């Protein structure tokens, strides 16, 4: 599955899209594909401060479970409530409707340790 340009990617297969002070986080097409049918997503509560690469939630498929690590630090401002009733959105549209949560970037938010689309593409081929 192609990785959209303009996003940044983590080794834990999350993507982040930075738009001014706000960042949107999701899991990659590769991640949803290897997990299989996603049945439940446990997300951090809005208002919670999260540090980059901290475990903030869990993604469950029928037969597997994976920690969700935030690729970026800041305050969680919004979570994708649509996933509650339709977790399959993460499978269908991992980079769009299946986004997970939004973060208000903290002043010293780091994007180091993240990859470009092309680097991530290579990374998934190696692993």
């Amino acid at each position, binding site marked *: 599955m192609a990785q959209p340009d303009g996003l940044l990617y983590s080794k834990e297969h999350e993507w982040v899209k930075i738009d001014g002070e706000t960042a949107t986080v999701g899991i990659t097409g590769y991640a949803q594909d290897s997990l299989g049918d996603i*049945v*439940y997503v*446990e997300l951090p509560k809005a208002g919670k401060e999260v540090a980059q690469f901290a475990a903030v939630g*869990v993604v*469950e*498929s*029928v*037969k*597997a*479970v994976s*920690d969700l690590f935030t690729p970026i630090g800041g305050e969680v401002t919004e979570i994708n409530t649509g996933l509650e009733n339709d977790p399959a959105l993460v499978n269908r549209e991992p980079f769009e409707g299946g986004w997970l949560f939004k973060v208000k970037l903290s002043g010293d938010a780091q994007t180091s340790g993240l990859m470009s689309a092309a680097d991530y593409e290579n990374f998934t081929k190696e692993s």
Partner: protein
Amino acid sequence: MYTPHTERDIAQMLQTVGVDSLDALLRVPDAVKLREKLEVVPALPETGIVSRFEELARMNPGASCISFLGAGSYRHYAPPAISALAMRGEFLTAYTPYQAEVSQGYLQAIYEWQTYICLLTGMDIANASVYDGATALAEAAIMALNENGRQKILVSRAIHPNYRAVLKTYCDGLDVTIEELPVAEDGTTDLGELASLTATKEYACVALQSPNFFGVIDTPGSAGQAALKESGTVLVAVIAEAMSLGALQPPSQWGAGIVTGEAQSFGVPVAYGGPYVGFIAATKEHLRRIPGRLAGKTVDSNGKEGYVLTLQAREQHIRRERATSNICTNQAHCALIATIYLALVGKTGLRDVAAANLQRTRELAAAVESIDGCSLKFSAPNFNEIVVCVHQPARHALAKLEQRGILGGVDLGRYYPEYDNCILMAATEMTTSRDIQTLAKALHEVVHVHTSTRSGPAASDETVNV
């Protein structure tokens, strides 16, 4: 030995494997070789096994005494149809139903069990069972702790002491603090401090048992419920005598978020303490945190309805150290027995049996109260247990009843030093009027004898137990 191998089989199989002896298959390094002679009970043929266990069973006169023992384990009537069905080999010798296609029967039975528990407790969801009433409470506390991230729990001192002890065992592992609510004069939990305590928002949950350990109906009332709701504290309801659910208001109506309990009363023998069957039911918000197995309905590739174990990603075999609990087995077979029991007795039977328990307990209370020197400790409405004050150490009175062939009840001093003159007595539909008369007569003698020798040394009573 239950092994079908002939000498010839063994020889052929060893040859196929390519080794020359059984010993060669089990070789271990010298350092860990078995050197000691094993001290194991001797081998007996089946006839010998039967006579050995019959002999051991005869060494338990307590199994056939007149008994008023309850306290979390109850003698109730079990229709013979239960064991005829539950002992069918397909049920008895199945493993956890991982292969749904050849386990539809058991999965459906679990789904029916989950439904019965929901209907009885008034909750939205129930799991496939847990070990017993005590571990159900501990697992429920963990659910609440994980949910709101608080580090303290508040429990009524009128909850079964063994349940509280198990809760403590579990909480010691998690470094969680348990605080207790005291017992009021009438035998209910003293909720005077509930509102101020929960207002600190430090408690993940409050646990109340109803009927409580003293048999007393013990629910929080509207002010208590409001305080819990206000502070986001989960009310964990404990049901140690499931038979009460046929008569009493379901815990959903007194504000429970999680209901835990023991379903031994539904056809499972007392069997010196186990196996029994714990249950956990909850409102639907708790679905993701509920521990253990869940059976769910779905469809097969042709659209036909069927059942599977579901939401397994919560469980230890997938989630490992992140699981909601380490629980692996449930008590499927005991849950099956309870499900068959409920199917057989139905709502009419459940109401009748609850009424019979109440009737016998009222008879017992009246008989005991009429004895000069005995009184009822608590005044609040109760189900099938009473607390009788004998105005002497309860253990002495019980030892004397035991000499007369009666198991009079549980010595409350064992768990509550302040009630060491009190006996917890249970009556069920199995208790006859004659049993009650026999007890009353004996108790009268016991109380009377004690009055005349009150100055005598207590030590003489101790020897009875040796």
